[in-house]
């Protein structure tokens, strides 16, 4: 029997991370310069290590270009890392004693922002959802039945919607179809890359409620990438903050939002527009734009915008280290780093 028909099984037990990525690096050479030789390199993701626990939602935040989507694409192996490894529930990916990339992609699915571009305009939505299960060997009738079942789960009445084409759906409905499609292979981990960002607020709320329900019902684990800090706070158990290809802070959601340690995390949080007209923002927390990921600053990459930057920050890259409830990469929080605000 095809492996596909099996329900996913927990192999390593609840304490073993569902996904462990170590030392991931992805640099993109940009063609240019003399004779079209690659002269410059985008440091999209640099030596990034993270784990995702079974059943949790890991939120990922950071400004445009900091590498969030690149991390996601590395985790599902849509692109190959220059370095580093991915281990799924104890099984290394694409290594002799591990699992294949195909098997990884069955267990880890992705949902993107652009709900229109990611659907085939010539397939009805039931065909779209049934496509992958069929390709994996599920008989057509069963694949269709599963697709209809999933449509109902994402709140689209199969009798009304099954035979429609993508252009006959609203943005919110199309995004529900994308989510149903991602669930069709019964994945264990779903990576949602700005999956609700294009939706209007009233529709976004519907989809967020649905994501929470599906997670419980299907025992899913989520990596939730978004530039909307409020939505990430609402949905996540842990949060990872990225800046120019690096993790600057990671920890439980209440620690990150309630007691942020990295100056960038603080700036990001206080840059959120106020919802209270009596407490409007008086001053922008930091000035300038994020620097270009080509030739990132030496040492701490945030130093060009950091109000606390000192000489050591340009010279030494701060390691990501535990400080109480979270891990943070800042010399001010590292004992003996040489920063005047660090304890000795």
């Amino acid at each position, binding site marked *: 029997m095809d492996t596909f028909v099996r329900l996913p099984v927990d192999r390593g037990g609840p304490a073993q991370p569902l996904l462990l990525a170590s030392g991931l690096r992805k640099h993109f050479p940009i063609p240019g310069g003399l004779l079209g030789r690659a002269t410059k390199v985008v440091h999209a993701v640099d030596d990034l290590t993270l784990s995702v626990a079974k059943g949790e939602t890991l939120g990922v935040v950071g*400004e445009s270009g900091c590498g969030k989507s690149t991390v996601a694409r590395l985790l599902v192996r849509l692109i190959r890392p220059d370095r580093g490894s991915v281990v799924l529930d104890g099984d290394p990916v694409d290594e002799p004693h591990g699992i294949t990339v195909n098997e990884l992609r069955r267990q880890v699915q992705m949902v993107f922002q652009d709900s229109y571009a990611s659907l085939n305009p010539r397939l009805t939505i039931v065909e779209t959802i049934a496509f992958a299960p069929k390709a994996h060997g599920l008989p057509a009738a069963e694949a269709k039945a599963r697709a209809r079942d999933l449509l109902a789960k994402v709140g689209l009445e199969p009798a009304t919607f099954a035979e429609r084409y993508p252009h006959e759906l609203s*943005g919110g409905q199309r995004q529900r179809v994308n989510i149903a499609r991602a669930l069709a292979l019964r994945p264990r981990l779903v990576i949602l890359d700005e999956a609700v960002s294009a939706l209007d*607020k009233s529709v976004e709320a519907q989809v967020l*409620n649905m994501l929470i329900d599906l997670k419980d019902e299907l025992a899913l684990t989520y990596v939730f990438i978004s530039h909307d800090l409020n939505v990430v*706070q609402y949905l996540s158990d842990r949060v990872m903050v990225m800046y120019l290809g690096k993790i600057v802070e990671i920890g439980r959601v209440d620690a990150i939002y309630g007691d942020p340690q990295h100056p960038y995390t603080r700036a990001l949080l206080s840059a959120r527009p106020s919802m209270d*007209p009596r407490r409007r923002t008086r001053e922008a927390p930091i000035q300038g734009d*994020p620097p270009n990921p080509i030739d990132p600053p030496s040492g701490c990459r945030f130093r060009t915008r950091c109000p606390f930057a000192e000489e050591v920050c340009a010279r030494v890259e701060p390691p990501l280290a535990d400080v109480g409830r979270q891990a943070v990469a800042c010399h001010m929080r590292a004992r003996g780093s040489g920063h005047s605000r660090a304890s000795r």
Partner: protein
Amino acid sequence: MTPLLSVKDLQVTFVTPDRTIHAVNGVSFDVKRGETLGILGESGSGKSVTLRSILKLHPAHRTRWSGSIALEGDEVLTMEGRALANLRGRRVSMIFQEPATAFDPVFTIGQQITESVRRHTGKSEAEAMKRAKDLLEMVRIPSPAQRLAAYPHEMSGGMRQRAMIALALSCDPSLLLADEPTTALDATVQIQVLLLIRELQRELDLGVIFVTHDIGVAVEVSDRVGVMYAGKLVELAGVEQMADAPRHPYSRGLLASTVHDGMRGQRLEAIPGAPPDLGEVPAACSFAPRCKSVEPRCLAAPPPLKPVDDSHFVRCVVAA
């Protein structure tokens, strides 16, 4: 005193070979000098169409409009020729989400701002250059003299947005139209640009209409807020009234479904369904199919915009 801008019962309909879209269905509001009116609404609610109408920017051959738009007493909808050019180039400026639409990629920022200054003021080249530098300084672009020589693509997103604001202000407009100018910016940059717009509005005593779909953004910049739904203003109030006690079921739903601090663990109160098709003139309250408080009288006719008090208006038979 005549307001800076007075829009009365504006209706905009697009007629294309395959369909008719009633994009704006009777919108009325005033903007005073020195005031920012925020217009909040979801995608397709008619925010941009309303804004573009003020510059009479819609394609003439397939747009039908009625109502009135008066800028300092002058009717815009019948303007043509020089009067229209003067309106667009001098009296009213617009900034957008995408600065690429405002700048020509083959000219420097300095050339483009200088050219605009010369066109509107008849200043000499040297004077216009000086003014361009002052404008860049005004929008807090560091080392403005060097920046004049930069091409648009050589600037970061936030800088380009500032340069676009400088270009928009180069003709000393009395009204600035802002169509989601910060939506594409990063969080830490967005707040800088919002604060800049707020400061410039005060410094220059501008009237501003700021369109956004983000409640937080509207709260940061607006004195008054109008909420649009399906081509109508459904509520209009001072920003504090709107944030504390919105009356229209749609405004309330929008606030309840916007995730913010402290909502963790609560189920979101989503508004069911989706906005209506704009193919027909609404014969009832457009929000009725999604409204929890719907009653038979909501379906009898489109409800009028009624005052709750002298500065708060709501288009709902139940809430008014």
